[in-house]
């Protein structure tokens, strides 16, 4: 069996968990462990970190011995979608609710291959009144609506 058709999904996933578990266990060393009788803040995370590291190995080791398909990551979709959420956070305070929502909708819609610019404009125009009605009018949220509403 070549490395190519091994179960790389589980190998990477398992090893990542082992790393993450070790990180939690080692980082938590800085907190007081305490005793079983009186556990300190470090006890629970250290034990859990070790358990997670072991589970990671339990997933990764058998995966070296069996065939499988590698992970398929849609980097572009991920960056656009996650980016649109970050963009919302960045623009909300400065540009206000309406513009931030419209920008987020337009940017997020770039992730889909089939969406046309006409649909995008339509969605951006549609989202603003819905958001306004629900969050400002309905729930009475206090948040700048437009860039000039301060």
């Amino acid at each position: 069996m070549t490395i190519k058709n091994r179960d790389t999904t589980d190998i990477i996933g398992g090893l990542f968990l082992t790393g993450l578990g070790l990180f939690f266990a080692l980082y938590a060393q800085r907190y007081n462990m305490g005793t079983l009788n009186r556990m300190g803040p470090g006890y629970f995370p250290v034990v859990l970190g070790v358990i997670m590291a072991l589970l990671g190995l339990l997933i990764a080791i058998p995966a070296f011995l069996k065939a499988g398909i590698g992970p398929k990551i849609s980097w572009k979709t991920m960056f656009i979608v996650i980016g649109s959420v970050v963009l919302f956070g960045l623009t909300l305070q400065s540009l206000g609710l309406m513009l931030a929502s419209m920008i987020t909708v337009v940017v997020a819609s770039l992730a889909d291959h089939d969406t046309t610019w006409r649909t995008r404009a339509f969605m951006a125009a549609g989202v603003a009144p819905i958001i306004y009605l629900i969050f400002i009018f309905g729930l009475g949220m206090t948040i700048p609506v437009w860039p000039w509403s301060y």
Partner: protein
Amino acid sequence: MDIMDGLLYGLQIIMQPSTLLYCFGGVFLGTLIGVLPGIGALATISLLLPITYQIPPTEAIVMLAGVYYGASYGGSTASILLNLPGTASSAVACLDGYPMAQKGKAGVALFMTTIASFFGSMIGLFLLIMFAPAITELGFKFGPAEYFSIMLMGLIAASTLSMGSPAKSLAMVVLGLLLGSVGTDVNSGVARFSFDIPELTDSISLVALAMAVFGVSEVVAKVNQVQGTISKEKITMRTMTPSRQEFKDSIMPMLRGSAVGSFFGALPGTGGSISSFMAYAVEKKVAKDPSRFGKGAIEGVTAPESANNAGAQTAFVPTLTLGIPGDATMALMLGALMIHGIQPGPSMMSEQPEIFWGLIVSFGVGNILLLVLNIPLVGLWVSILRIPYRVLYPIILVFMSLGVYSVNNNTFDVYVVAALGTLGYFMNVFKFPAAPLLLGFVLGPLVEENLRRALLLSRGDMMTFVERPISASILGVTAVLLIWAVWSSIRSDLKARAQAKSSIS
């Protein structure tokens, strides 16, 4: 307060116009999101959580519960018409529901799933009413050791009984527990894993976590996936009416399905999908002619559908009586209650009777509303199914971002959603389930607190967990679950390897 008084009291609560309105809103929204593939009850409830800050606790919880069981009504619609499950628990409805639609029996299938859903819900609700007071009594006998053991059982059951690799689910439970430990430790005041970020000393927001792993990561995974096409067939009252034979053939399966669903629903740690698969398997076992399954057998639709609805009702048993959520959705409901300063548990029935009984009676009212709504509104659900996902998801993203912002009026939580959403997407790609993560996250602080307290009481003696009879028997069941999981995963590994070998040679 005995059961009859409780029910009458609950009826007074639910009959107030505002409660009734929220109940209606909840079940309507629940059906809607159940119908739409790609938005589950979990994502919707996490979306609504911030909104519930603004309304009174009874109304809030009645609405969220309505979304939960309403979604289990609508969930099968997309399965039947598109061969695409609306919610995870209705994936099994694709097996026979879609073949029925292809044979021109879509209307009958939709009608019968509504009936089966109602039937299952009523049985589940009846059992909930019967057993909740008794389990509450039992709950008063629980000390920290028992609480720790039963939560451990819930967490292990959630990972071993779910689909896919138990090791992966267990790892996600542990990751959830670890994420739950982020923030200030109650006993010592130490800020754990806060990395000197002031917002993190306040622990990770449940809303942000839920939206990230169930909302954002789902969106990333679903964009650009091919959508099914819906048949042009008109669904009218006439095409919906089942024949007398079809109706008769469904009664026993609905009973069996409800029994299976009620059992798995009440068990902490198992959710709707496992109960509907089990109900399907049971039907196949008892059928005279199992070869009909997968080709449009009506009992393949009605049994699982009653099962997941019965389970949706009995899932409230451990949540309301012991304060231990049975599945990820229940974990969110628990979170919603805690937001309002209500700690579900044995004392809830006596201390918050308006919520306890109001909620229970609202299930009855909500299910009747669903029955009345669903049959005439089938046409509406069908047309909603035609909205393409590419129009929905950008709007969903804005709702999620704004919703999470509104909880603390803080953009930090929006960035938490982005960060955890990335984690959630990688979990999806590497095939790690998200539900155990959320369950671990919500239970984490409770597990730790009870573990610490139990050991403090026993002066550090671990034997306390096996010396106390209730705790010992719960741990016994947990051990059996674990051994079974290990054995079955080794067996499936060996099978996979044997298959791989035979395909190479």
